[in-house]
């Protein structure tokens, strides 16, 4: 996925002279995850900027640049560090178009790695996407694979609205099915790891039915897509797995059509359970598909604790937790 993200930024830097990248360690060093590797060498120090360690300043400066006609792509090194920039994101970036009746707007993309499964503890493993979905004026996306990542990032950069782009770092290098003892599988072996070289976009607001099925619907995003697929396969359940990709705007039609068809739904995400984005999905499913529900909707999420270091695999919602939810929803008569 790293190469896909790099390619997206490379293409956009080449196509649109107003695109600039900014963030901590992204310029000369190429980013702590190598996402911006080689880009400063290729496009120069004035297109790919290193910044101070000041997330609030990064976002604010990006806003100012965007108002002056640039199209900044700001990296927040870990989603865990996004909070110092929260005010500028929520109070300013999200509302600028609205409060100025469209006279001013800031086409800023904020990229940030999120999620656990990497033994990063509570300051390198958080999934705060739900918090941002609650803010009107922000688009929130999270790809699960390289193909989607590149298309969505290009869409995000081209979008005139602000986008918070979450990158589940556990799947930077390959899909992860929740089993830490298995050897890592690279993206090169996976169909979604095949990424076209040129420019392409994936629209926001369109979920991907990763696997069609008729027993139940699993609505998920990010790393959990692969965990869910594996859990369903291990049970021999014919699950329809939907990768949301785009949290705001949300593809309600795809979710509703699926659960109406299957009558059974599991919602899965890494983020903490209480008031997580899963609660919104659950609510939407309940509203749209109530009369088709054969069983209560099940929710799989991280526990409501800060992300612990030593208990990584008890915390991470792995196949066991997903399988339990699948069984519960299938066994309701």
């Amino acid at each position: 996925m790293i190469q896909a993200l790099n390619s997206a930024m490379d293409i956009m830097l080449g196509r649109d002279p107003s695109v600039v990248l900014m963030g901590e360690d992204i310029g000369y060093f190429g980013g702590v995850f190598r996402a911006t590797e080689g880009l400063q060498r290729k496009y120069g120090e004035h297109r790919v900027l290193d910044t101070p360690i000041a997330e609030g300043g990064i976002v604010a400066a990006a806003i100012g640049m965007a108002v002056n006609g640039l199209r900044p792509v700001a990296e927040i090194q870990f989603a865990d560090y996004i909070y110092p920039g929260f005010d500028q994101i929520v109070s300013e970036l999200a509302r600028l178009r609205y409060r100025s009746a469209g006279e001013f707007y800031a086409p800023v993309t904020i990229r940030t790695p999120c999620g656990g499964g990497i033994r990063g503890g509570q300051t390198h493993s958080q999934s705060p996407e739900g918090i941002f979905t609650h803010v009107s004026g922000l688009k929130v996306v999270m790809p699960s694979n390289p193909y989607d990542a590149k298309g969505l990032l290009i869409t995000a950069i081209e979008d005139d609205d602000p986008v918070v782009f979450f990158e589940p770092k556990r799947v930077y290098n390959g899909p992860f099915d929740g089993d830490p003892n298995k050897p890592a599988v690279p993206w090169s072996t996976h169909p979604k790891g095949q990424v076209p070289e040129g420019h392409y976009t994936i629209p926001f607001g369109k979920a991907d039915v990763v696997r069609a099925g008729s027993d139940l619907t699993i609505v998920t995003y990010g790393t959990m897509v692969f965990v869910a697929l594996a859990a369903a396969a291990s049970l021999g359940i014919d699950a329809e797995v939907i990768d949301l990709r785009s949290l705001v705007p949300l593809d309600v039609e795809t979710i509703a059509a699926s659960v109406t068809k299957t009558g059974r739904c599991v919602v899965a995400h890494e983020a903490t359970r209480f008031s997580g984005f899963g609660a919104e999905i659950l609510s939407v499913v309940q509203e749209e598909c109530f009369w088709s529900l054969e069983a209560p909707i099940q929710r799989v999420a991280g526990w409501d604790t800060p992300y612990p270091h030593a208990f990584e695999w008890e915390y991470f919602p792995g196949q066991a937790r997903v399988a339990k939810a699948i069984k519960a929803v299938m066994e309701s008569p």
Partner: protein
Amino acid sequence: MRLHLPRPPARPGEKPDFGYVHLSPAGAVARPEVSARALDMGPLATELVRVLDDEHEAVGPWNPHLDPAELQVGLRHMLLTRLYDDRMQRTQRAGKISFYMRSLGEEAVSVAACMALSPGDMLFPSYRNQGLHIARGIPLVDLMCQLLSNTRDMCKGRQLPVMYHSRPGNLFSISGNLATQFPQAVGWAMAAALKGEDHLAASWIGEGSSAEADFHHALLFASVYQAPVILNVVNNQWAISTFQGYAGGEQRSFAARGPGYGIAGIRADGNDFLAVHAVTAWAAQRARTGAGPTLIELVTYRAAAHSTSDDPARYRAKDDQEHWPLGDPIERLKQHLIKLGEWSEERHRALATELEALVAASWQQAITYGTMSEGPRLNSDLMFEDVFKEMPKHLLKQREQMRAERG
């Protein structure tokens, strides 16, 4: 062990005492080259740049030597600002608008600075810089319609009164959040430099707001990137009821923070039209020649309340502002022009009458677009527009629900 707590010199009922305000004699402070290093400009951050002395004469190296015609324009802008403020204050008290914030005593801070800048320079104001809008020629009707949130409101009903913006006037959208505009201005300036343009950005915050992290981010980024930006801290001594000591002003001037970041810091008399103009022009030239950003502290006094919701008699001496050592900006410029033989009290009165009539006529026009109680109203459908560039499905759906509710 005791915790020190900043205290203003005079509370209600006490005698006003502005001895804490460090003053320099008019014309005493040197004027360095625009290319001077911040580190070499030490005294400017703690002294006070003044051009008009107590006899209303322009003195010293900072004298901008402005044309009397230009000064008259400045006086006009300042007076219009004040009269507009006065009228809008009364209008709020009459219940015709919901809220207002005056800039009484701070007219020069905005007007003089604006006139020292170019129209292509981007301004990032706070809510007390209406002088900028007036000096840039934004019609009063437009400002009033924003106050009224009526059918001609530039914000389409979405903002509290006084949160103006003007794209053609290069006046950035005012936020209710404090200090957020400071680092945004720096970003804008960085982009101007990246694009190789001649424009600069200027921003204003109050001294109270300089406590926010955004202040630090602005100075840091301005310093790191040597952005072509002018960062103004308007030290009007009060942030609602919070005395400037709580923003750190007791221990150090606000301008002195500039050199701490390696930025040129200048402390200037905010009620002196010529001084404000001069330091702004200096900072503008510094920025445009690539010599970097400047932090300017405008020392002034918030002569009125924080807003129509505030009553300063509850936390400061009632006649405080009359004892302010640096006088009133309009009065001083007027006297200076009279001294130059380029103005008179009669002309001033006539100007005041003319401008009052302009304000009144503008109001009459503004209310034809709707008031809080009668006339055309904005369609609440507008609530759902401009959240995003294009209205997404979920908002279309919600708009339908709202319409059904509304009937």
